[in-house]
C-alpha cells in the first residue's frame, strides 16, 4: 500500500505537441491517499484511461513524475510497480482453471506454493468463487470472469493500488449492483488504495469516498459525493453530476446585482472576481414552484417515480425543478423560486460566490 503522488503530469499521444489542444492530459497534480477509495469520473475521451495507464505504467507520461510513497516510479514497467488493474473486458487465461488464474501473478513472482494456496483460498472465499476453483475459466459467465480478474489483482498482498477501468461495462444490469457492493466490501476488507474509472455517476458516487471529476484532460473538482452534489466548483460538475443536472442560466452582472430575465436573483454569498461570462447555477432540487418569483410556462412534466421533474421555460431558457407532486399541467403559468443558499454564480465556468456564513 502506498500514497500515490502525481506531479506536473502531462501527456500527449503526439510526439511533438504544438499546443494545449494536443494534450490528452493537461497538468495534473494530485495525491491519492493510502487506502482511499477513489473514483475517476468523466465523459468518454476526457483522459481518465490515459491517467490510469500512466499510473499503472502501461504508458509513460510526456512530462511529470509519479511517486509511490515518495519513490519515483515514472520509468518503472508495470510488473515492478506492484499495481493491479482490472480492465473493461474481463481478462482471464482461458486454458487455466480458476485456481491457476488466481495463482498466476504469485507464481510469476516465485512465491512458494504453500503461501499461494493460502492466498488463493482467502481471495476465493472473499469473492464467493470457492466452488468454481477447479473449473476451466473459459466457461464462466462474464460477471464471474470479471470477479476472477479482480481476484488476480487482489491476490498479491503487497499491491500498491488496485485500478478498475470501467469494470462493469459488460456486466448485466442486475449483477452490476451485486458486483459493486462486493467491491465496496472488498475495499473495506483489504484496505488497499483503489481507483475506479467510470463515466457512470451512480457507480462513482456509490463506490468512492473521494471522486475526481475530469473534463478535457483536466481535473475540475475533487470531493466527496456530497460536496460534488452540493457545491460544484465548475458548471461542468454541476451539469454532469445529478439527474437531471444543475440548471445553468446565462445572467448579467450589474452593479453587484445578478439579473436574469430582467429580475434580480439573490445568490448565496459574496461575489468574487469580475468580468468574464457569468452564469447562475441552481440544482433542480432547490427550485420550487411558488406564488411569487420568476414567471415561467410549464413545457413538460415527467413523473420519474418518487418525484416529478417540471421543465419550465423562462423566455428561451429551460429551467428544471424537482417537485414531490406534479400538480401542474403542461402549458400552465407558474412562478419559480430558487433557494438562496443553493444558488451560485459561475464566472467562465468556475464558481464565483463564497458560501453563506
Amino acid at each position: 500500500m502506498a500514497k500515490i503522488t502525481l506531479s506536473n503530469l502531462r501527456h500527449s499521444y503526439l510526439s511533438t505537441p504544438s499546443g494545449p489542444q494536443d494534450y490528452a492530459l493537461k497538468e495534473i497534480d494530485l495525491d491519492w491517499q493510502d487506502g482511499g477509495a477513489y473514483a475517476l469520473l468523466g465523459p468518454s475521451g476526457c483522459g481518465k484511461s490515459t491517467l490510469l495507464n500512466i499510473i499503472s505504467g502501461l504508458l509513460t507520461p510526456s512530462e511529470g513524475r509519479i511517486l509511490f510513497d515518495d519513490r519515483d516510479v515514472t520509468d518503472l514497467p508495470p510488473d515492478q510497480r506492484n499495481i493491479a488493474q482490472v480492465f473493461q473486458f474481463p481478462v482471464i487465461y482461458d486454458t487455466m482453471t480458476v485456481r491457476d488464474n488466481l495463482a498466476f501473478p504469485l507464481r510469476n513472482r516465485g512465491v512458494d506454493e504453500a503461501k499461494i494456496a493460502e492466498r488463493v483460498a482467502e481471495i476465493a472465499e472473499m469473492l464467493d468463487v470457492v466452488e468454481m476453483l477447479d473449473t476451466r475459466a473459459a466457461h464462466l459467465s462474464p460477471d464471474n470472469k470479471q470477479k476472477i480478474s479482480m481476484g488476480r489483482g487482489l491476490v498479491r498482498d503487497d499491491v500498491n493500488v488496485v485500478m478498475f477501468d470501467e469494470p462493469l461495462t459488460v456486466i448485466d444490469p442486475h449483477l452490476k449492483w451485486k458486483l459493486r457492493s462486493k467491491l465496496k466490501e472488498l475495499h473495506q476488507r483489504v484496505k488497499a488504495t483503489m481507483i475506479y474509472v467510470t463515466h457512470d455517476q451512480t457507480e462513482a458516487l456509490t463506490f468512492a469516498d473521494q471522486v475526481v471529476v475530469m473534463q478535457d484532460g483536466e481535473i475540475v473538482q475533487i470531493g466527496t459525493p456530497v460536496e460534488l452534489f452540493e457545491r460544484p466548483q465548475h458548471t461542468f460538475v454541476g451539469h454532469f453530476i445529478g439527474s437531471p443536472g444543475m440548471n445553468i442560466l446565462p445572467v448579467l452582472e450589474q452593479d453587484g446585482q445578478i439579473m436574469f430575465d430582467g429580475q434580480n436573483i439573490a445568490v448565496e454569498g459574496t461575489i468574487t472576481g469580475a468580468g468574464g461570462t457569468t452564469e447562475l447555477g441552481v440544482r433542480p432540487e432547490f427550485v420550487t414552484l411558488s406564488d411569487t418569483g420568476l414567471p415561467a410556462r410549464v413545457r413538460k412534466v415527467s413523473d420519474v417515480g418518487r418525484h416529478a421533474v417540471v421543465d419550465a421555460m423562462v423566455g428561451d431558457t429551460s429551467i428544471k425543478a424537482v417537485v414531490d407532486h406534479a400538480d401542474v399541467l403542461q402549458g400552465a403559468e407558474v412562478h419559480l423560486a430558487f433557494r438562496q443558499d443553493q444558488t451560485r454564480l459561475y464566472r467562465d465556468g468556475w464558481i464565483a460566490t463564497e458560501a453563506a456564513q
Partner: protein
Amino acid sequence: MKTENQRAWFFVLPVLLLVAFNALVPIMTVVNYSVQETFGNNVFFWQGLDWFEQILRSDRFHAALGRQFLFTFLILIIEIPLGIIIALSMPRKGIWVPVCLVTMALPMLIPWNVVGAMWNIFTLPKIGLLGYFMNDVLGVNYDMTQDPLAAWITIIVMDVWHWTSLVVLLAYAGLVSIPDAYYQAAKIDGASPWKVFRYIQLPKMKTVLTIAILLRFMDSFNIYTEPFVLTGGGPGNSTTLLSIDLVKIALGQFDLGPAAAMSLIYFAITLLVSWLFYTLMTKDDAK
C-alpha cells in the same frame, strides 16, 4: 404451427444436382472401376474386392504411402512452428504491415507447376543458381537429379517456401484479434514472454491453427504437381509420393481397376486422418 410438406427439397435440389455432377458421379465411376476388370472394348468383368486386396498387400503401395506420410510429417513439423514464429515477429501496426502481408502472400499466388519449374531450374547443377552455388562455389555435392537425399531436401524446402505463408497469415489473423488488455494484464501479472505465448497467444490462435494444420495436411498429402515437375518422382522412386504413383498406375500402365481401388483407399486415409486431427484438436472445447 408447423407446415408439413416436401417443398424444401426444391431449394436443395440445385445444389444436390451440382454436387452430384462434380463429386458423386465421378466418385461412383471410380467405385465402379475398382470392382471390375476390363481388357478393352468396353467389356467389364466383375472382380469383387480383389483390387483392394492387391493394393493393400503391395510393397509398392506401402513404400509410396510411407514416403507420403514422411513428407507430410516433415512439412507440418517445419511449416507450423516456422509460420507461428514468423507471425509473432511481424509488426502489428504501421506501414510495414501491408508490406509484410503482401510479401508473405506472393509465393501462394504462383501456379503450382510454375513453382515446380522455378525450383527445378533454380536447383539444377551447373545451370541453376542454387545448384551452381552449392557445387561450384561451396564445393558441396548437391544434385537432386541423382541423389535421393538432395531430392528430398529440395521438395521439402520448396513446399516450405510455397506454403509456410498460409500458416503465417492464419496465425497472424489469430494474433491481431487479441485485445491489448490481455497483453497489459499479462504485463501487470508479471508474465514472462514465454508465458504470454503459452497462455494468451497460443490459446487464441488455436482455432486458426487447427484450420492451418488441416489445410496443410490435406494439401500436402494430396500433393502432385510440384514434386512431379521438379523430380518426376525420382531419382528412382525416391520421391514418388502417393498421387504420383497413382497417376503412373492409372495413366502410365492404364490399370484402371487397381488405380481406382488405390484412389478410394487414398481418399479414405485422407478423410480418416483429417477427422482424427480435427477431433483431437477440438475436443477440449466441447467439455
